[in-house]
């Protein structure tokens, strides 16, 4: 065998600077440029010895005259070069010299480019300074880190989203009605069934002497004087508005505005989650590079507070210890016998069944509470002020109680199920999400069963008129009550639980305060709270068009309440929540909430008969008919087109095409992952090849030398511990290289 192929591993590879070459920043740039501009010569002449800080004559490129213009226009700005200030200025002088060689056209282009870039930077600066709560969020970030920052920026996003939804509803639904008195417009509301039992809508305003607390009950429950106002669906008893210029079909506008706000929310959330999703897709698992990330990208450089620094340190410590623990558990898992596995799986099964039973019990109690509350309201049973309110708010109370107790239960149960710590956290969260969002679903289901169930015979008007003369308003009222109660609870818990806790723990040292400890800002629970509120808003906006505005104000106030509580009462959590994946988690849960919210809205628009006594859809059977009726009025061509869109043939083919697209994208993602691992292998091979080749080269050199060289190995100069490594001290002199050794004058 040729001795070329046998590497003696024991052979010492002398210190050779070629091996130490970092891929310099400049060579990276030029390798990129060469693919875009196409002059390959530049990369070869610059790449090899462009070490980090040598820019001068040794590394400067040889540019052709006709390449100058292109290169100057597309070169990185001076400030982004990885050089010290002096060298940057030298580069800038060089460039300005070359720029003077340019034609006038080239110079003008370059100047405009620079001006535009500066304008753009300034504009971006101004825009970002207009962002809501920018300084508050900065403050929070500096003190509590990026995990909690993501919660507050999520809250800000929801405020803006709700504002946009409200503007949508206001412009298309409320504004046309508001300006009726100011323009000479006519309202057309053909009351079919005039006088039939279906279109009876008794006024709910209180008559006679009204006790003050009844006003408060009305305010909190959306009944009484609030019922027949802009707040609820029932007020918009307008079909079409005849303006001097044309007709405005309010019924159609109501329907389309609903669809529009759902679509707008969907698109905005998906757009926002796109970046986080990309990262999650490329990473293999959560434990990919977990140690490296913590050591090299673990310390947050923006920490300036000693306490925060201590907390960061302890949270890093905790994370590292958790990771080591996970390693240990993985090794233990591998050692599990079959008997152990059976035991654990059966235990998990039992516990999951138990969790299901608990959830079923909660849902049944919500159902009971809703039906009881509706009964009480119908019977108009008045006991006293407090009992009235409790009857109104019974569903909300039960839901809140269930949402408070079940997470505690879940966190106890998960300890017995023997999962890895990371999976434990995720699984508990999934269970909590499921609980929260399904409780709203159960409430709506119980309402639905009451609305469409008229006893033995089929309903006269399509819905239960005896119970509800205007069922949409009733649903809107329930959503309104949920929102108000949610807000009251958040503020009450902050004031009545968190502040006293802080006072107790600070001023009264005892066993209780030690056990209870200082409040931690639990990010997942807080996020679930606001996602719950947002889901209610999405569902309720159809029945209560002002609800998005109420939610905007609610989240606006919650921001300040939470910020105050955070700064006064909380210490940052020792169980750190990864900031990078947290955005993705928040938006994922929000998306689940949105898809849940679409279901009741779709069912009530398409299936349940709309009220005959109130609302814009008096003349139609279901709300959806407003759309079909106006499609009938379109020209024939558009009609056929729209019918074709909604036919089964189109739906099936659309479904098939989206399935294909999805499979393609999944396959692409899989292919990318494989390419990444292949490239990683290539990098490894490249490094080994380098070693091998240099070793062989040196061997060949040694063999071909006639007399022994008096090279010795000069010790590398350690004099300046800066990054200007000395290149020429270790080369055996006879070694012929492709490129000349850089001048030692590049060293400082």
């Amino acid at each position: 065998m040729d001795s070329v192929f046998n590497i003696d591993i024991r052979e010492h590879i002398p210190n050779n600077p070629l091996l130490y070459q970092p891929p310099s920043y400049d060579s990276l740039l030029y390798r990129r440029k060469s693919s875009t501009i196409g002059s390959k010569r530049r990369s070869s002449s610059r790449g090899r010895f462009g070490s980090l800080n040598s820019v001068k004559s040794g590394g400067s490129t040889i540019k052709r005259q006709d390449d100058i213009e292109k290169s100057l226009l597309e070169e990185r700005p001076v400030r982004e070069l990885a050089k010290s200030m002096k060298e940057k200025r030298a580069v800038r002088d060089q460039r300005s010299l070359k720029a003077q060689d340019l034609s006038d056209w080239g110079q003008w282009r370059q100047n405009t480019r620079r001006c535009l870039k500066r304008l753009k930077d300034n504009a971006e600066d101004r825009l970002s300074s207009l962002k809501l709560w920018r300084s508050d969020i900065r403050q929070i970030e500096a003190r509590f880190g990026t995990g909690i920052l993501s919660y507050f920026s999520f809250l800000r996003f929801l405020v803006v989203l709700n504002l946009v939804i409200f503007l949508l509803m206001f412009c298309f639904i409320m504004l046309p009605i508001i300006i009726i008195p100011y323009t000479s417009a006519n309202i057309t509301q053909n009351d079919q069934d005039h006088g039939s039992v279906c279109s009876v809508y008794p006024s709910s305003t209180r008559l006679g002497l009204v006790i003050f607390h009844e006003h408060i009950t009305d305010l909190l429950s959306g009944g009484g004087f609030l019922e027949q106002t802009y707040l609820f669906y029932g007020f918009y008893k307008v079909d079409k508005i005849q303006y001097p210029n044309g007709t405005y079909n309010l019924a159609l506008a109501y329907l389309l505005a609903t669809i529009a706000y759902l679509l707008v929310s969907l698109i905005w959330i998906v757009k926002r989650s796109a970046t986080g999703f990309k990262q999650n897709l490329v990473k293999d698992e959560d434990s990919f590079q977990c140690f490296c990330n913590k050591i090299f990208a673990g310390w947050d450089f923006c920490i300036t507070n000693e306490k925060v620094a201590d907390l960061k340190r302890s949270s890093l410590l905790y994370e590292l210890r958790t990771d080591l623990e996970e390693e240990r558990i993985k090794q233990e898992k591998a050692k599990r016998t079959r008997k152990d596995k059976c035991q654990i799986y059966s235990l998990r099964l039992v516990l999951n069944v138990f969790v299901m039973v608990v959830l079923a019990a909660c849902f049944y109690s919500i159902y009971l509470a809703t039906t009881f509350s509706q009964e009480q309201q119908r019977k108009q049973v008045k006991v006293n002020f407090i009992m009235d309110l409790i009857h109104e708010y019974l569903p909300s109370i039960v839901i809140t109680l269930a949402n408070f107790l079940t997470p505690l239960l879940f966190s106890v149960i998960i300890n017995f199920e023997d999962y890895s710590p990371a999976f434990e956290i995720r699984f508990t969260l999934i269970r909590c999400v499921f609980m929260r969002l399904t409780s709203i679903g159960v409430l709506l289901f119980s309402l639905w069963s009451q609305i469409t169930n008229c006893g033995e015979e089929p309903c006269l008007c399509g819905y239960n008129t005896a119970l509800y003369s205007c069922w949409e308003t009733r649903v809107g009222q329930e959503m309104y009550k949920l929102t108000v109660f949610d807000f009251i609870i958040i503020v009450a818990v902050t004031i009545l639980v968190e502040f006293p806790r802080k006072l107790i723990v600070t001023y009264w040292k005892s066993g209780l305060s030690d056990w209870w400890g200082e409040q931690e800002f639990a990010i997942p629970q807080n996020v679930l709270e606001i996602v719950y509120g947002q889901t209610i808003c999405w569902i309720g906006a159809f029945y209560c068009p002002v609800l998005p505005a109420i939610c905007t104000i609610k989240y606006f106030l919650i921001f300040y309440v939470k910020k105050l509580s955070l700064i006064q009462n909380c210490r940052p959590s020792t169980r750190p929540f990864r900031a990078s994946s947290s955005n993705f988690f928040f938006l994922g849960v929000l998306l689940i909430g949105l898809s849940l919210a679409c279901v009741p809205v779709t069912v009530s628009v398409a299936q349940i008969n709309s009220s005959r006594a109130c609302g814009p859809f008096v003349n139609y059977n279901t709300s959806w008919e407003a759309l079909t009726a106006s499609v009938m009025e379109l020209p024939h061509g558009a009609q056929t087109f729209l019918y074709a869109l909604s036919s089964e043939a189109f739906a099936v083919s659309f479904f098939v095409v989206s399935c294909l697209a999805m499979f393609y994208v999944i396959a692409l993602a899989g292919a990318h992952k494989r390419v990444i691992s292949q490239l990683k292998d290539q990098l490894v091979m490249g490094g080994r090849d380098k070693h091998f080749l240099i070793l062989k080269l040196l061997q060949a050199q040694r063999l071909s030398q006639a007399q022994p060289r008096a090279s010795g190995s000069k010790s590398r100069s350690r004099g300046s511990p800066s990054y200007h490594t000395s290149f020429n001290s270790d080369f055996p002199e006879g070694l012929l290289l492709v490129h000349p050794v850089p001048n030692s004058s590049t060293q400082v």
Partner: protein
Amino acid sequence: MGNKQTIFTDEQLDAYQVNSFCRLHGRYHELAPHLVPMDYTNEPDCKIPLALIVNMPELKENPFRDRIVESFSEDGMGNLSFNEFVDMFSVLSEMAPRELKAIYAFKIYDFNVDNYLCKEDLEKTLNKLTKEELTPEEVELVCEKTIVEADLDGDSKLSYADFENMITRAPDFLRYLVFVETDASKPCL
């Protein structure tokens, strides 16, 4: 703080990226008022020693403060001239590109300045991060795992290529290697 034109020439202002450039000069001056002249138009040659810079609020709590300052100084001893000071803030600002930050991060973690992150460098990094609260076995284990994760060429130490390949995948890297601009006049939060 004087008028911009009296401290720097227009050209000098042009070359720099940091928006609050004059504020930086104010801060540099505050660190050592007797050393730093107010008038920079003639580019005076003065350097502030490490011990003074390390007490700045941005660096005070940072476990790597010594290494940060050393890696930006030309002489490697941590004495920063104003150019290097601006360099440091420029690299550790939000607008610096990822590659730039990766280069300097490598310098910071390379304690013995041999262009490699060897096991001793990692151990020192870890001990500075956790203030030596991990047991030696845990430190050993963590360093081993780190090298296994990031080392591509199999020499059981991390060269810059290994480091760069790894750090570009770290999701928080860009966000964390940023100074928050604290106003020199206000006490830090």
